[in-house]
């Protein structure tokens, strides 16, 4: 370990070359890239829909799924996806949106979350798996991604991304303006389920890299940061993906050169990105307020302004 850090200090490029020569690091970086791409996209909609609690719940359901898969003896991704889709249906049904577009049943979703955790613990005990595997599910095992895992992750990622691309505009419409979207014939409720299913798929992929507890970092922070930086949907999506990719690569690289876990670095960097974005927003607003005080606002409301002028 000491030798590695020595190399990093003296020859950064050479050290990176050594890093890329390890198959496990290449796999980790590839898997991280795919997961970050998907999380950045789906997280953007999650932040807009204010459904991060649903995302968190689906992650914990994923934990139960992976533990259950170990119990039955199938691939964890099977358990992750099966439980995830089931959970998406449950969260969708119990957390029915009110007409105003908000989730009413936070409590119902919370109940599902605790049930999922309890089931996960039970499955883990029954399957006599080592505590290490539970640890891997909860905190991720980016450095243990195999070629087969990579193929599974890539396949589910393609499905998730195609699904999001198919529903992107009606989903955005239904998210921001559910009543008008429904009146225009957009299947608002169906979209809500489809979206949760896609979120469950994204979570199933991400769990293998960042783990069930830290998944939040990749789903929430880059998207929230991107929304602080821009109000354009296209640019926001691109920024969200870019930030997710950046923190994942940085997290994996820094973890390689230090003895600390990957999940810690990815989540800390994601959080830092969010804080920076907030800071940037505050600064930008200060400048904006000082820059355009009078002329802009007068144009803003021509009629109301004219009435006021005519009155005085």
């Amino acid at each position: 370990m000491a030798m590695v850090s020595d190399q990093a200090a003296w020859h950064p490029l050479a050290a990176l070359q050594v890093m890329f020569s390890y198959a496990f690091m290449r796999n980790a970086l590839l898997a991280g890239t795919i997961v970050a791409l998907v999380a950045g996209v789906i997280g953007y909609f999650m932040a807009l829909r204010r459904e991060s609690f649903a995302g968190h719940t689906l992650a914990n359901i994923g934990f139960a799924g992976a533990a259950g898969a170990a119990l039955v003896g199938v691939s964890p991704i099977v358990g992750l996806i099966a439980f995830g889709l089931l959970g998406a249906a449950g969260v969708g049904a119990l957390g029915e949106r009110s007409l105003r577009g908000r989730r009413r049943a936070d409590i119902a979703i919370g109940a599902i979350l605790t049930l999922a955790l309890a089931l996960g613990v039970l499955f883990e005990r029954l399957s006599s798996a080592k505590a290490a595997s539970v640890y891997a599910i909860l905190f991720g095992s980016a450095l243990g991604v195999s070629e087969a895992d990579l193929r599974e992750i890539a396949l589910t990622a393609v499905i998730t991304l195609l699904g999001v691309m198919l529903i992107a505009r009606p989903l955005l419409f239904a998210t921001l303006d559910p009543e008008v979207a429904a009146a225009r014939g957009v299947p608002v409720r169906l979209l809500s389920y489809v979206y949760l299913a896609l979120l469950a798929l994204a979570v199933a992929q991400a769990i293998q890299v960042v783990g069930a507890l830290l998944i939040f970092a990749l789903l929430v922070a880059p998207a929230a940061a991107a929304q602080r930086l821009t109000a354009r949907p296209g640019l926001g999506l691109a920024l969200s993906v870019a930030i997710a990719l950046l923190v994942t690569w940085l997290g994996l690289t820094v973890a390689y050169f230090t003895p600390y876990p990957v999940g810690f670095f990815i989540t800390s960097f994601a959080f830092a990105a969010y804080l920076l974005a907030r800071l940037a927003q505050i600064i930008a607003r200060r400048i904006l307020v000082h820059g355009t005080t009078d002329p802009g606002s007068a144009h803003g409301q021509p009629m109301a302004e004219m009435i006021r002028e005519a009155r005085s």
Partner: protein
Amino acid sequence: MMAPRPFIVSATQVTRNATSIGAASQSASAPAVRRGENDCGQAAAQSQEEVIRFEGAGVRVGGRTIWRAVTFSARAGEFIAILGPNGAGKSTLLKVALGLLPLSAGHVSAFGRPVRRGAAGISYLPQRRVFDSDTHIRGRDLVRLGLDGTRWGTPLPGLRALWGGARLAREERQRVQESLDLVGATAYADRPIGEISGGEQQRILIAQALVTRPRLLLLDEPLEGLDLPNQQAVSLLIQTICREAHVTALLVAHDVNPLLSYLDRVVYVAHQQVISGQPEEVITTEKLSRLYDAYIEVLRTSDGRLIVVGQPDEGISHHGHGQ
């Protein structure tokens, strides 16, 4: 008997100013107004054209009759207010027109065809939606969703050039801009919707409703929560749209006074029935008092305009919040 409550409105002043801005805004919005489908020169014939017709229509929700035997129709370019006490079924009237609620009796047709959900040519502005202050989407994007929010798939900027999508996107951007110009929302269209004022949000939402170039505009309490100048301005804006683009507007309102000088017709919904007519015919002390089952006084100002005083549950509370 209920004591009549006065409105805190300086009515004369408001109207005088409203007419002066009327001229200004009409000239400003004229270029953005829809052309093509409505050839000029047929304006007279068109104004006879029926846009929506209720025939003996009735609605029951949860076993309760909301209203029945409702018959009225609206012609192209008419600006009609739907008024009445709380819970009388004003919004239900709009939902039926949108095809969102089934009828228990009668027919409702729009453009000569039975109403159905998602029908073309109809735009809907639901009861006031307030966007959370951290909704980080531009007003312009919200208007754009009115055009392409119902389309599946995502056009990728590079690929869409292959099938002419780039031109379509350009046309749509232009239509969004026209719509924003028409309502006077261009100056704040690029700011996040959550950060602009309630009146500005309402204007963005009207732009969204107009971007599909509808022939029928259904508005559910668009004046709610706006201060008096904004109530006047939005009323005038809708009148302008009706006149110049021959759009029919059905507007549900709580309080008729800020609207009165802009309306062509009023529809009152109360006690399971509906009466409609010119404001002068319907807005009388006797008719309104019978309708609301409470004493409502209609006053006439020196310049001949009507003021309704003492609508139960309304009036003071409404304007008290004003500015």
